[in-house]
Protein backbone atom coordinates (compact mmCIF):
# COMPACT_ATOMS: atom_id res chain seq x y z
CA UNK A 1 0.00 0.00 0.00
CA UNK A 2 1.40 3.38 -0.95
CA UNK A 3 1.21 6.09 1.62
CA UNK A 4 0.78 9.03 -0.75
CA UNK A 5 -2.76 10.05 0.01
CA UNK A 6 -3.82 13.37 1.49
CA UNK A 7 -7.08 13.52 3.39
CA UNK A 8 -9.08 16.59 4.48
CA UNK A 9 -11.68 16.56 7.21
CA UNK A 10 -14.18 19.45 7.25
CA UNK A 11 -15.98 19.09 10.55
CA UNK A 12 -16.46 21.07 13.76
CA UNK A 13 -16.89 17.97 15.92
CA UNK A 14 -13.70 17.59 17.95
CA UNK A 15 -14.44 14.05 19.07
CA UNK A 16 -15.02 12.86 15.51
CA UNK A 17 -11.83 14.55 14.34
CA UNK A 18 -9.81 13.05 17.20
CA UNK A 19 -11.08 9.52 16.60
CA UNK A 20 -10.81 9.66 12.81
CA UNK A 21 -7.30 11.02 13.04
CA UNK A 22 -6.26 8.29 15.50
CA UNK A 23 -7.81 5.55 13.36
CA UNK A 24 -6.29 6.77 10.10
CA UNK A 25 -2.86 7.13 11.69
CA UNK A 26 -3.00 3.47 12.69
CA UNK A 27 -3.74 2.39 9.11
CA UNK A 28 -0.72 4.06 7.52
CA UNK A 29 -2.84 4.75 4.45
CA UNK A 30 -2.65 8.52 4.54
CA UNK A 31 0.31 10.80 4.35
CA UNK A 32 -1.33 14.01 5.48
CA UNK A 33 -4.53 14.92 7.27
CA UNK A 34 -5.81 18.49 7.14
CA UNK A 35 -8.60 19.69 9.38
CA UNK A 36 -11.01 22.61 8.84
CA UNK A 37 -13.65 23.52 11.40
CA UNK A 38 -16.05 24.96 8.84
CA UNK A 39 -16.71 25.06 5.11
CA UNK A 40 -15.40 28.59 4.58
CA UNK A 41 -11.87 27.85 5.84
CA UNK A 42 -11.78 24.77 3.61
CA UNK A 43 -12.99 26.51 0.47
CA UNK A 44 -10.47 29.33 1.03
CA UNK A 45 -7.69 26.75 1.28
CA UNK A 46 -8.82 24.97 -1.90
CA UNK A 47 -9.13 28.25 -3.80
CA UNK A 48 -5.63 29.36 -2.79
CA UNK A 49 -4.10 26.05 -3.81
CA UNK A 50 -5.98 25.26 -6.99
CA UNK A 51 -3.81 23.47 -9.53
CA UNK A 52 -1.28 22.41 -6.86
CA UNK A 53 -1.66 18.66 -7.06
CA UNK A 54 0.84 17.98 -4.29
CA UNK A 55 -1.05 20.20 -1.83
CA UNK A 56 -4.68 19.40 -2.70
CA UNK A 57 -6.25 16.34 -1.03
CA UNK A 58 -7.53 13.27 -2.87
CA UNK A 59 -10.33 12.77 -0.39
CA UNK A 60 -12.57 15.01 1.70
CA UNK A 61 -14.76 13.93 4.60
CA UNK A 62 -17.43 16.61 4.85
CA UNK A 63 -19.76 17.26 7.77
CA UNK A 64 -23.08 19.01 7.10
CA UNK A 65 -23.92 20.90 10.27
CA UNK A 66 -21.16 23.46 10.84
CA UNK A 67 -20.94 27.12 11.82
CA UNK A 68 -20.21 29.99 9.41
CA UNK A 69 -20.45 27.85 6.26
CA UNK A 70 -22.21 24.50 6.48
CA UNK A 71 -21.64 21.42 4.32
CA UNK A 72 -24.29 22.31 1.75
CA UNK A 73 -22.92 25.81 1.28
CA UNK A 74 -19.43 24.33 0.96
CA UNK A 75 -20.70 21.99 -1.79
CA UNK A 76 -22.23 24.95 -3.67
CA UNK A 77 -18.95 26.82 -3.55
CA UNK A 78 -16.97 23.66 -4.40
CA UNK A 79 -19.15 22.95 -7.47
CA UNK A 80 -18.30 26.43 -8.77
CA UNK A 81 -14.62 25.99 -8.02
CA UNK A 82 -14.27 22.39 -9.28
CA UNK A 83 -13.59 23.11 -13.00
CA UNK A 84 -10.61 25.32 -12.04
CA UNK A 85 -9.18 23.01 -9.38
CA UNK A 86 -7.18 20.74 -11.69
CA UNK A 87 -7.50 17.58 -9.58
CA UNK A 88 -10.08 14.90 -8.92
CA UNK A 89 -11.21 15.14 -5.32
CA UNK A 90 -13.52 12.50 -3.86
CA UNK A 91 -16.00 13.90 -1.37
CA UNK A 92 -17.81 11.81 1.25
CA UNK A 93 -20.49 13.46 3.33
CA UNK A 94 -20.00 12.23 6.89
CA UNK A 95 -22.93 13.37 8.97
CA UNK A 96 -24.78 12.26 12.06
CA UNK A 97 -28.01 13.37 10.34
CA UNK A 98 -30.33 10.50 9.51
CA UNK A 99 -32.85 12.85 7.88
CA UNK A 100 -34.09 11.39 4.56
CA UNK A 101 -34.17 14.96 3.18
CA UNK A 102 -30.43 15.29 3.69
CA UNK A 103 -29.72 11.89 2.18
CA UNK A 104 -31.88 12.62 -0.89
CA UNK A 105 -30.36 16.07 -1.32
CA UNK A 106 -26.84 14.59 -1.24
CA UNK A 107 -27.75 12.26 -4.13
CA UNK A 108 -28.53 15.26 -6.34
CA UNK A 109 -25.04 16.74 -5.95
CA UNK A 110 -22.63 15.21 -8.47
CA UNK A 111 -19.52 16.19 -6.50
CA UNK A 112 -20.61 13.88 -3.66
CA UNK A 113 -19.46 10.24 -3.96
CA UNK A 114 -21.45 8.89 -1.03
CA UNK A 115 -23.34 9.81 2.11
CA UNK A 116 -21.95 8.11 5.19
CA UNK A 117 -24.01 8.21 8.37
CA UNK A 118 -21.94 8.54 11.55
CA UNK A 119 -20.78 6.61 13.52
CA UNK A 120 -18.17 5.43 11.02
CA UNK A 121 -16.45 2.17 11.85
CA UNK A 122 -12.75 1.66 11.39
CA UNK A 123 -13.39 -0.87 8.59
CA UNK A 124 -15.65 1.51 6.71
CA UNK A 125 -13.06 4.28 6.96
CA UNK A 126 -10.30 2.04 5.62
CA UNK A 127 -12.55 0.87 2.78
CA UNK A 128 -13.31 4.46 1.77
CA UNK A 129 -9.67 5.47 1.65
CA UNK A 130 -8.37 2.25 0.12
CA UNK A 131 -10.92 2.37 -2.67
CA UNK A 132 -9.10 5.27 -4.29
Amino acid at each position, binding site marked *: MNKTKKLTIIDD*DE*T*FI*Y*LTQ*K*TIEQTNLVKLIKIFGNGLDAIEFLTENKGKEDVLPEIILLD*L*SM*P*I*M*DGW*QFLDAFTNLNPKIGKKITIYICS*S*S*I*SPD*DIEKAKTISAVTDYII*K*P*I*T*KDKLIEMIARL
Partner: protein
Amino acid sequence: MKDLADFKYVLDESTIVVITDPKGIITYANDNFCQISKYSREEIIGQDHCKLNSGHHDKVYIQNLWETIMAGKIWRGQMKNKAKDGSYYWIDMTIIPFFNDDGTPREYVAIRTDITRIKESEEALTQSLKEVSNYKFALDASSIVAIADRKGIIKYANDNFCKISKYRREELLGKDHRLIRSGYHPKTFIKNLWDTITAGRIWKGEMKNKAKDGTYYWVDTTIVPFLDEDGMPFQYLAIRSDITDRKKSEEELIKYSKALADKNTQLVDFCNIVSHNLRAPLVNISMLVDYIEQSEVLEDKVEALGKVKPVVNHLMEIFNELVESLQVKQDTTVKLDKVRPQASLDKVLIGFESQIGQYGAVITSDFNSAPFIYCPQKYLESIFTNLVSNALKYKSPNRNPQITIKTKDLGNAVLLSVKDNGLGINLNVHQKNLFKIRKTFHKHPDAKGFGLFMTKTQVEAIDGKIWAESIPDEGSTFFIEFKKPPR
Protein backbone atom coordinates in the same frame (compact mmCIF):
# COMPACT_ATOMS: atom_id res chain seq x y z
CA MET B 1 -120.96 68.76 -56.40
CA LYS B 2 -117.41 69.07 -57.62
CA ASP B 3 -116.32 69.96 -54.10
CA LEU B 4 -118.04 66.87 -52.69
CA ALA B 5 -116.31 64.62 -55.18
CA ASP B 6 -112.98 66.22 -54.18
CA PHE B 7 -113.67 65.52 -50.49
CA LYS B 8 -114.48 61.90 -51.25
CA TYR B 9 -111.27 61.60 -53.24
CA VAL B 10 -109.20 63.00 -50.40
CA LEU B 11 -110.94 60.75 -47.87
CA ASP B 12 -110.51 57.59 -49.97
CA GLU B 13 -106.84 58.34 -50.56
CA SER B 14 -106.00 59.10 -46.95
CA THR B 15 -108.15 56.77 -44.87
CA ILE B 16 -109.94 53.49 -44.80
CA VAL B 17 -113.64 54.01 -45.48
CA VAL B 18 -116.40 51.46 -44.93
CA ILE B 19 -120.15 51.99 -45.08
CA THR B 20 -122.66 49.50 -43.68
CA ASP B 21 -126.45 49.38 -43.67
CA PRO B 22 -128.36 49.50 -40.38
CA LYS B 23 -127.86 45.72 -39.94
CA GLY B 24 -124.15 45.94 -40.34
CA ILE B 25 -123.98 44.62 -43.88
CA ILE B 26 -121.11 46.20 -45.79
CA THR B 27 -122.36 48.30 -48.69
CA TYR B 28 -119.20 50.23 -49.52
CA ALA B 29 -115.47 49.57 -49.04
CA ASN B 30 -112.68 51.70 -50.49
CA ASP B 31 -109.30 50.53 -51.83
CA ASN B 32 -107.53 51.18 -48.55
CA PHE B 33 -110.03 48.90 -46.80
CA CYS B 34 -109.44 46.12 -49.33
CA GLN B 35 -105.71 46.51 -48.91
CA ILE B 36 -105.70 46.25 -45.12
CA SER B 37 -108.40 43.55 -44.85
CA LYS B 38 -106.95 41.60 -47.78
CA TYR B 39 -110.48 40.99 -49.13
CA SER B 40 -111.40 42.00 -52.68
CA ARG B 41 -114.31 44.38 -53.00
CA GLU B 42 -116.49 41.60 -54.50
CA GLU B 43 -115.79 39.32 -51.55
CA ILE B 44 -116.66 41.86 -48.86
CA ILE B 45 -119.58 43.84 -50.25
CA GLY B 46 -122.80 42.32 -48.92
CA GLN B 47 -121.01 40.61 -46.02
CA ASP B 48 -121.80 41.22 -42.35
CA HIS B 49 -119.25 43.52 -40.75
CA CYS B 50 -118.83 41.05 -37.90
CA LYS B 51 -116.85 38.90 -40.32
CA LEU B 52 -113.97 41.21 -39.43
CA ASN B 53 -114.25 40.62 -35.67
CA SER B 54 -111.00 39.51 -34.09
CA GLY B 55 -112.59 38.25 -30.89
CA HIS B 56 -110.22 40.56 -29.00
CA HIS B 57 -112.87 42.90 -27.61
CA ASP B 58 -115.42 41.91 -25.00
CA LYS B 59 -119.18 42.09 -25.53
CA VAL B 60 -119.58 45.25 -23.44
CA TYR B 61 -117.21 47.13 -25.73
CA ILE B 62 -119.08 46.09 -28.86
CA GLN B 63 -122.43 46.70 -27.22
CA ASN B 64 -121.34 50.20 -26.20
CA LEU B 65 -120.39 50.86 -29.84
CA TRP B 66 -123.81 49.84 -31.12
CA GLU B 67 -125.67 51.71 -28.44
CA THR B 68 -123.70 54.86 -29.25
CA ILE B 69 -124.26 54.85 -32.98
CA MET B 70 -127.87 53.68 -32.74
CA ALA B 71 -128.49 56.60 -30.43
CA GLY B 72 -127.25 58.77 -33.24
CA LYS B 73 -123.96 59.64 -31.66
CA ILE B 74 -120.54 59.38 -33.20
CA TRP B 75 -118.40 56.54 -31.80
CA ARG B 76 -114.67 56.88 -31.58
CA GLY B 77 -112.34 54.16 -30.54
CA GLN B 78 -109.69 51.64 -31.39
CA MET B 79 -110.42 48.18 -32.69
CA LYS B 80 -108.56 45.03 -33.54
CA ASN B 81 -109.85 43.38 -36.71
CA LYS B 82 -109.09 40.14 -38.52
CA ALA B 83 -107.93 40.13 -42.15
CA LYS B 84 -108.83 37.49 -44.72
CA ASP B 85 -105.59 35.57 -44.13
CA GLY B 86 -106.23 35.39 -40.37
CA SER B 87 -103.72 38.11 -39.45
CA TYR B 88 -104.79 40.98 -37.23
CA TYR B 89 -104.65 44.74 -37.66
CA TRP B 90 -105.49 47.65 -35.44
CA ILE B 91 -107.49 50.64 -36.52
CA ASP B 92 -108.43 53.96 -35.05
CA MET B 93 -112.07 54.31 -36.02
CA THR B 94 -114.74 56.99 -36.16
CA ILE B 95 -118.30 55.76 -36.96
CA ILE B 96 -120.83 58.34 -38.03
CA PRO B 97 -124.46 57.26 -38.16
CA PHE B 98 -126.81 58.69 -40.80
CA PHE B 99 -130.60 58.65 -40.38
CA ASN B 100 -133.68 58.63 -42.56
CA ASP B 101 -136.21 61.38 -42.23
CA ASP B 102 -138.33 59.11 -40.02
CA GLY B 103 -135.45 58.77 -37.62
CA THR B 104 -134.52 55.17 -38.47
CA PRO B 105 -130.83 54.54 -39.17
CA ARG B 106 -129.96 54.66 -42.83
CA GLU B 107 -126.29 53.74 -42.83
CA TYR B 108 -123.10 53.92 -40.83
CA VAL B 109 -119.98 55.44 -42.30
CA ALA B 110 -116.75 54.26 -40.69
CA ILE B 111 -113.55 56.17 -41.26
CA ARG B 112 -110.46 54.38 -40.09
CA THR B 113 -106.74 54.72 -39.92
CA ASP B 114 -104.25 51.87 -39.58
CA ILE B 115 -102.63 51.94 -36.14
CA THR B 116 -101.28 48.38 -36.18
CA ARG B 117 -97.68 49.59 -35.82
CA ILE B 118 -98.54 51.83 -32.87
CA LYS B 119 -100.50 49.06 -31.20
CA GLU B 120 -97.65 46.59 -31.70
CA SER B 121 -95.21 49.02 -30.09
CA GLU B 122 -97.68 49.61 -27.28
CA GLU B 123 -98.06 45.89 -26.73
CA ALA B 124 -94.29 45.37 -26.80
CA LEU B 125 -93.91 48.20 -24.31
CA THR B 126 -96.56 46.73 -22.02
CA GLN B 127 -94.83 43.37 -22.31
CA SER B 128 -91.45 44.92 -21.50
CA LEU B 129 -92.89 46.79 -18.54
CA LYS B 130 -94.38 43.57 -17.26
CA GLU B 131 -91.07 41.79 -17.68
CA VAL B 132 -89.21 44.60 -15.94
CA SER B 133 -91.63 44.50 -13.08
CA ASN B 134 -91.21 40.71 -12.92
CA TYR B 135 -87.45 41.10 -12.87
CA LYS B 136 -87.63 43.70 -10.13
CA PHE B 137 -89.89 41.41 -8.13
CA ALA B 138 -87.48 38.49 -8.58
CA LEU B 139 -84.48 40.69 -7.72
CA ASP B 140 -86.12 42.08 -4.60
CA ALA B 141 -87.12 38.59 -3.55
CA SER B 142 -83.67 37.10 -4.06
CA SER B 143 -81.14 39.85 -3.40
CA ILE B 144 -80.16 42.79 -1.30
CA VAL B 145 -80.87 45.76 -3.52
CA ALA B 146 -80.00 49.43 -3.08
CA ILE B 147 -79.88 52.42 -5.36
CA ALA B 148 -77.63 55.36 -4.63
CA ASP B 149 -77.30 58.66 -6.45
CA ARG B 150 -74.08 59.90 -7.98
CA LYS B 151 -72.87 61.12 -4.59
CA GLY B 152 -73.56 57.79 -2.90
CA ILE B 153 -76.74 58.90 -1.13
CA ILE B 154 -79.13 55.97 -0.68
CA LYS B 155 -82.33 56.49 -2.73
CA TYR B 156 -83.78 53.00 -2.54
CA ALA B 157 -83.37 50.10 -0.17
CA ASN B 158 -85.34 46.89 -0.41
CA ASP B 159 -86.51 44.71 2.48
CA ASN B 160 -83.49 42.42 2.27
CA PHE B 161 -81.17 45.41 2.59
CA CYS B 162 -83.02 46.59 5.69
CA LYS B 163 -82.94 43.09 7.13
CA ILE B 164 -79.20 42.47 6.73
CA SER B 165 -78.13 46.01 7.68
CA LYS B 166 -80.58 46.04 10.63
CA TYR B 167 -81.62 49.61 9.75
CA ARG B 168 -85.20 50.66 9.15
CA ARG B 169 -85.82 51.97 5.63
CA GLU B 170 -86.28 55.57 6.89
CA GLU B 171 -82.88 55.34 8.55
CA LEU B 172 -81.24 54.36 5.27
CA LEU B 173 -82.93 56.61 2.73
CA GLY B 174 -81.16 59.92 2.21
CA LYS B 175 -78.07 58.74 4.07
CA ASP B 176 -74.58 58.47 2.65
CA HIS B 177 -73.74 54.91 1.67
CA ARG B 178 -70.69 55.11 3.94
CA LEU B 179 -73.15 54.44 6.78
CA ILE B 180 -72.56 50.70 6.30
CA ARG B 181 -68.82 50.94 5.66
CA SER B 182 -66.89 48.51 7.88
CA GLY B 183 -63.45 50.10 7.66
CA TYR B 184 -62.11 46.65 6.78
CA HIS B 185 -61.14 47.43 3.21
CA PRO B 186 -58.03 49.46 2.38
CA LYS B 187 -58.42 52.87 0.73
CA THR B 188 -57.12 51.50 -2.58
CA PHE B 189 -59.99 48.97 -2.63
CA ILE B 190 -62.63 51.68 -2.15
CA LYS B 191 -60.89 53.95 -4.66
CA ASN B 192 -60.86 51.19 -7.26
CA LEU B 193 -64.60 50.68 -6.72
CA TRP B 194 -65.42 54.38 -7.21
CA ASP B 195 -63.02 54.74 -10.14
CA THR B 196 -64.75 51.81 -11.84
CA ILE B 197 -68.36 52.90 -11.37
CA THR B 198 -67.80 56.62 -11.95
CA ALA B 199 -66.22 55.62 -15.25
CA GLY B 200 -69.52 53.90 -16.06
CA ARG B 201 -68.25 50.35 -15.66
CA ILE B 202 -69.72 47.54 -13.57
CA TRP B 203 -67.88 46.72 -10.35
CA LYS B 204 -67.96 43.25 -8.81
CA GLY B 205 -66.39 42.18 -5.57
CA GLU B 206 -66.78 40.92 -2.04
CA MET B 207 -67.31 43.49 0.68
CA LYS B 208 -67.45 43.50 4.41
CA ASN B 209 -70.12 45.89 5.72
CA LYS B 210 -71.24 46.99 9.15
CA ALA B 211 -74.80 46.61 10.41
CA LYS B 212 -76.55 49.06 12.72
CA ASP B 213 -75.74 46.97 15.81
CA GLY B 214 -72.01 47.04 14.98
CA THR B 215 -71.85 43.47 13.72
CA TYR B 216 -70.28 42.77 10.37
CA TYR B 217 -71.62 40.96 7.32
CA TRP B 218 -70.06 39.99 4.01
CA VAL B 219 -71.79 40.55 0.70
CA ASP B 220 -71.00 39.54 -2.82
CA THR B 221 -71.59 42.84 -4.58
CA THR B 222 -72.32 43.97 -8.11
CA ILE B 223 -72.68 47.70 -8.67
CA VAL B 224 -74.19 48.76 -11.98
CA PRO B 225 -73.97 52.44 -12.93
CA PHE B 226 -77.02 53.86 -14.75
CA LEU B 227 -75.87 56.30 -17.41
CA ASP B 228 -77.57 59.48 -18.62
CA GLU B 229 -77.69 60.57 -22.27
CA ASP B 230 -74.14 61.91 -22.02
CA GLY B 231 -72.92 58.54 -20.78
CA MET B 232 -72.41 59.93 -17.27
CA PRO B 233 -73.61 57.83 -14.30
CA PHE B 234 -76.55 59.44 -12.54
CA GLN B 235 -77.24 56.60 -10.11
CA TYR B 236 -75.87 53.27 -9.03
CA LEU B 237 -77.74 50.03 -8.51
CA ALA B 238 -76.10 47.71 -6.02
CA ILE B 239 -77.12 44.06 -6.00
CA ARG B 240 -75.71 42.08 -3.13
CA SER B 241 -75.99 38.61 -1.69
CA ASP B 242 -75.11 37.54 1.81
CA ILE B 243 -71.90 35.47 1.92
CA THR B 244 -71.15 35.97 5.61
CA ASP B 245 -71.29 32.25 6.40
CA ARG B 246 -69.00 31.36 3.52
CA LYS B 247 -66.57 34.13 4.50
CA LYS B 248 -66.55 32.96 8.10
CA SER B 249 -65.78 29.40 6.99
CA GLU B 250 -63.07 30.72 4.70
CA GLU B 251 -61.50 32.78 7.49
CA GLU B 252 -61.61 29.78 9.82
CA LEU B 253 -60.11 27.58 7.14
CA ILE B 254 -57.27 30.02 6.47
CA LYS B 255 -56.64 30.34 10.19
CA TYR B 256 -56.55 26.57 10.72
CA SER B 257 -54.46 25.89 7.66
CA LYS B 258 -51.95 28.54 8.76
CA ALA B 259 -51.86 27.06 12.26
CA LEU B 260 -51.39 23.63 10.75
CA ALA B 261 -48.59 24.82 8.48
CA ASP B 262 -46.90 26.48 11.48
CA LYS B 263 -47.21 23.31 13.52
CA ASN B 264 -45.84 21.28 10.65
CA THR B 265 -42.85 23.60 10.27
CA GLN B 266 -42.22 23.30 14.00
CA LEU B 267 -42.45 19.53 13.73
CA VAL B 268 -39.97 19.43 10.86
CA ASP B 269 -37.68 21.76 12.82
CA PHE B 270 -37.96 19.50 15.83
CA CYS B 271 -37.17 16.39 13.74
CA ASN B 272 -34.12 18.18 12.38
CA ILE B 273 -33.03 19.13 15.89
CA VAL B 274 -33.34 15.53 17.03
CA SER B 275 -31.70 14.19 13.89
CA HIS B 276 -28.81 16.68 13.82
CA ASN B 277 -28.24 17.99 17.29
CA LEU B 278 -29.16 15.14 19.59
CA ARG B 279 -27.82 12.37 17.43
CA ALA B 280 -24.36 13.93 16.98
CA PRO B 281 -23.21 13.62 20.63
CA LEU B 282 -24.73 10.13 20.85
CA VAL B 283 -22.68 9.13 17.83
CA ASN B 284 -19.60 10.57 19.52
CA ILE B 285 -20.17 8.51 22.64
CA SER B 286 -20.74 5.40 20.57
CA MET B 287 -17.54 5.96 18.57
CA LEU B 288 -15.53 6.70 21.71
CA VAL B 289 -16.75 3.52 23.38
CA ASP B 290 -15.90 1.45 20.27
CA TYR B 291 -12.45 3.02 20.17
CA ILE B 292 -11.83 2.32 23.86
CA GLU B 293 -12.91 -1.29 23.40
CA GLN B 294 -10.79 -1.87 20.32
CA SER B 295 -7.69 0.01 21.40
CA GLU B 296 -4.84 -2.17 22.68
CA VAL B 297 -2.83 0.67 24.19
CA LEU B 298 -3.81 1.65 27.71
CA GLU B 299 -2.77 5.28 27.23
CA ASP B 300 -5.10 5.57 24.24
CA LYS B 301 -7.96 4.08 26.24
CA VAL B 302 -7.43 6.59 29.06
CA GLU B 303 -7.16 9.53 26.67
CA ALA B 304 -10.37 8.54 24.87
CA LEU B 305 -12.18 7.97 28.15
CA GLY B 306 -11.36 11.55 29.12
CA LYS B 307 -13.23 12.73 26.05
CA VAL B 308 -16.51 11.07 27.02
CA LYS B 309 -17.37 13.48 29.82
CA PRO B 310 -17.42 16.71 27.72
CA VAL B 311 -19.61 14.98 25.14
CA VAL B 312 -22.06 13.89 27.81
CA ASN B 313 -22.11 17.46 29.17
CA HIS B 314 -22.75 18.75 25.68
CA LEU B 315 -25.60 16.27 25.23
CA MET B 316 -27.12 17.38 28.52
CA GLU B 317 -26.85 21.02 27.50
CA ILE B 318 -28.61 20.47 24.17
CA PHE B 319 -31.21 18.35 25.84
CA ASN B 320 -31.96 21.06 28.40
CA GLU B 321 -32.20 23.70 25.69
CA LEU B 322 -34.67 21.53 23.82
CA VAL B 323 -36.78 20.99 26.89
CA GLU B 324 -36.76 24.74 27.56
CA SER B 325 -37.91 25.52 24.01
CA LEU B 326 -40.57 22.81 24.18
CA GLN B 327 -41.92 24.32 27.38
CA VAL B 328 -42.35 27.64 25.56
CA LYS B 329 -44.12 25.89 22.69
CA GLN B 330 -46.39 23.93 24.98
CA ASP B 331 -47.24 27.03 26.99
CA THR B 332 -50.28 27.56 24.77
CA THR B 333 -52.12 29.75 27.24
CA VAL B 334 -49.38 32.38 27.60
CA LYS B 335 -50.83 35.37 29.37
CA LEU B 336 -50.00 38.64 27.67
CA ASP B 337 -48.72 41.26 30.11
CA LYS B 338 -48.96 44.94 29.24
CA VAL B 339 -45.25 45.63 29.67
CA ARG B 340 -43.27 48.87 29.55
CA PRO B 341 -40.30 47.95 27.34
CA GLN B 342 -38.23 50.67 29.04
CA ALA B 343 -38.63 48.97 32.44
CA SER B 344 -37.70 45.54 31.03
CA LEU B 345 -34.71 46.93 29.17
CA ASP B 346 -33.41 48.81 32.22
CA LYS B 347 -33.65 45.62 34.26
CA VAL B 348 -31.81 43.58 31.60
CA LEU B 349 -29.06 46.18 31.08
CA ILE B 350 -27.98 45.88 34.73
CA GLY B 351 -26.62 42.45 33.85
CA PHE B 352 -24.53 43.89 30.99
CA GLU B 353 -23.08 46.83 32.95
CA SER B 354 -19.51 45.55 33.03
CA GLN B 355 -19.47 44.62 29.32
CA ILE B 356 -21.00 47.97 28.33
CA GLY B 357 -18.33 49.76 30.34
CA GLN B 358 -15.53 47.57 29.01
CA TYR B 359 -16.51 48.04 25.32
CA GLY B 360 -17.53 51.70 25.66
CA ALA B 361 -20.93 50.70 24.29
CA VAL B 362 -23.65 53.32 23.84
CA ILE B 363 -27.20 52.06 24.21
CA THR B 364 -30.05 54.41 23.31
CA SER B 365 -33.75 53.68 23.49
CA ASP B 366 -36.90 55.44 22.33
CA PHE B 367 -40.24 53.92 23.23
CA ASN B 368 -42.34 57.08 22.84
CA SER B 369 -44.18 55.90 19.72
CA ALA B 370 -45.40 52.79 21.54
CA PRO B 371 -44.71 52.86 25.29
CA PHE B 372 -46.36 49.45 25.86
CA ILE B 373 -45.82 45.96 24.44
CA TYR B 374 -48.19 43.06 24.96
CA CYS B 375 -45.96 40.14 25.83
CA PRO B 376 -45.21 37.96 28.86
CA GLN B 377 -42.69 39.98 30.87
CA LYS B 378 -40.22 37.07 31.16
CA TYR B 379 -40.28 36.66 27.35
CA LEU B 380 -39.56 40.33 26.74
CA GLU B 381 -36.69 40.27 29.21
CA SER B 382 -35.31 37.15 27.58
CA ILE B 383 -35.68 38.76 24.11
CA PHE B 384 -33.81 41.89 25.25
CA THR B 385 -31.14 39.75 26.92
CA ASN B 386 -30.51 37.72 23.76
CA LEU B 387 -30.54 40.64 21.33
CA VAL B 388 -28.38 42.95 23.49
CA SER B 389 -26.01 40.09 24.25
CA ASN B 390 -25.63 39.35 20.52
CA ALA B 391 -25.09 43.02 19.69
CA LEU B 392 -22.27 43.18 22.25
CA LYS B 393 -20.82 39.74 21.44
CA TYR B 394 -20.58 40.36 17.69
CA LYS B 395 -19.33 43.93 17.90
CA SER B 396 -17.02 45.28 15.27
CA PRO B 397 -13.35 45.36 16.32
CA ASN B 398 -13.11 48.78 14.64
CA ARG B 399 -15.72 50.78 16.55
CA ASN B 400 -17.49 51.10 19.87
CA PRO B 401 -20.82 49.27 19.93
CA GLN B 402 -23.86 51.50 19.39
CA ILE B 403 -27.22 49.87 20.03
CA THR B 404 -30.49 51.64 19.26
CA ILE B 405 -33.70 50.14 20.58
CA LYS B 406 -37.06 51.54 19.45
CA THR B 407 -40.73 50.77 19.26
CA LYS B 408 -43.15 51.87 16.60
CA ASP B 409 -46.94 51.76 16.74
CA LEU B 410 -48.33 49.90 13.71
CA GLY B 411 -51.98 50.24 14.71
CA ASN B 412 -52.81 46.61 15.42
CA ALA B 413 -49.25 45.71 16.43
CA VAL B 414 -46.08 47.15 17.94
CA LEU B 415 -42.78 46.84 16.09
CA LEU B 416 -39.67 46.55 18.24
CA SER B 417 -36.32 47.11 16.56
CA VAL B 418 -32.84 46.50 17.93
CA LYS B 419 -30.15 48.00 15.72
CA ASP B 420 -26.41 47.58 16.16
CA ASN B 421 -23.26 48.65 14.32
CA GLY B 422 -21.50 45.31 14.73
CA LEU B 423 -20.10 42.62 12.43
CA GLY B 424 -23.38 42.03 10.60
CA ILE B 425 -24.42 38.75 9.03
CA ASN B 426 -24.35 37.80 5.37
CA LEU B 427 -28.05 37.07 5.00
CA ASN B 428 -27.63 35.90 1.40
CA VAL B 429 -25.89 32.89 2.89
CA HIS B 430 -27.38 32.56 6.36
CA GLN B 431 -30.99 33.74 6.00
CA LYS B 432 -32.52 30.28 6.27
CA ASN B 433 -30.47 29.26 9.28
CA LEU B 434 -30.61 32.56 11.15
CA PHE B 435 -33.07 31.43 13.80
CA LYS B 436 -32.22 27.70 13.81
CA ILE B 437 -30.86 25.96 16.86
CA ARG B 438 -27.08 25.44 17.02
CA LYS B 439 -26.43 27.62 13.98
CA THR B 440 -23.67 30.17 14.37
CA PHE B 441 -22.35 32.68 11.91
CA HIS B 442 -19.20 34.06 13.48
CA LYS B 443 -16.04 32.56 14.95
CA HIS B 444 -16.73 33.47 18.53
CA PRO B 445 -15.93 31.18 21.45
CA ASP B 446 -19.28 31.97 23.10
CA ALA B 447 -21.37 31.44 19.97
CA LYS B 448 -23.82 28.64 20.72
CA GLY B 449 -26.65 29.12 18.29
CA PHE B 450 -29.35 29.13 20.94
CA GLY B 451 -30.24 32.79 21.61
CA LEU B 452 -31.98 33.62 18.33
CA PHE B 453 -33.60 30.17 18.21
CA MET B 454 -35.07 30.72 21.68
CA THR B 455 -36.10 34.29 20.81
CA LYS B 456 -37.97 33.11 17.72
CA THR B 457 -39.64 30.32 19.71
CA GLN B 458 -40.87 32.85 22.29
CA VAL B 459 -42.02 35.37 19.67
CA GLU B 460 -43.96 32.70 17.79
CA ALA B 461 -45.53 31.41 20.98
CA ILE B 462 -47.30 34.80 21.28
CA ASP B 463 -48.18 34.88 17.58
CA GLY B 464 -45.55 37.49 16.74
CA LYS B 465 -43.03 37.74 13.95
CA ILE B 466 -39.27 38.13 13.93
CA TRP B 467 -36.92 38.98 11.10
CA ALA B 468 -33.60 40.71 10.50
CA GLU B 469 -31.84 43.05 8.15
CA SER B 470 -28.09 43.13 8.03
CA ILE B 471 -25.12 44.37 6.07
CA PRO B 472 -21.79 42.65 6.81
CA ASP B 473 -19.34 45.02 8.58
CA GLU B 474 -22.05 47.67 9.05
CA GLY B 475 -24.43 46.05 11.49
CA SER B 476 -27.70 44.25 12.00
CA THR B 477 -31.24 45.24 12.90
CA PHE B 478 -33.61 42.73 14.42
CA PHE B 479 -37.34 43.41 14.15
CA ILE B 480 -40.05 41.85 16.27
CA GLU B 481 -43.72 42.47 15.68
CA PHE B 482 -45.90 42.08 18.77
CA LYS B 483 -49.62 41.82 18.15
CA LYS B 484 -51.94 43.99 20.20
CA PRO B 485 -54.77 42.08 21.87
CA PRO B 486 -58.14 42.61 20.15
CA ARG B 487 -60.06 45.50 21.72
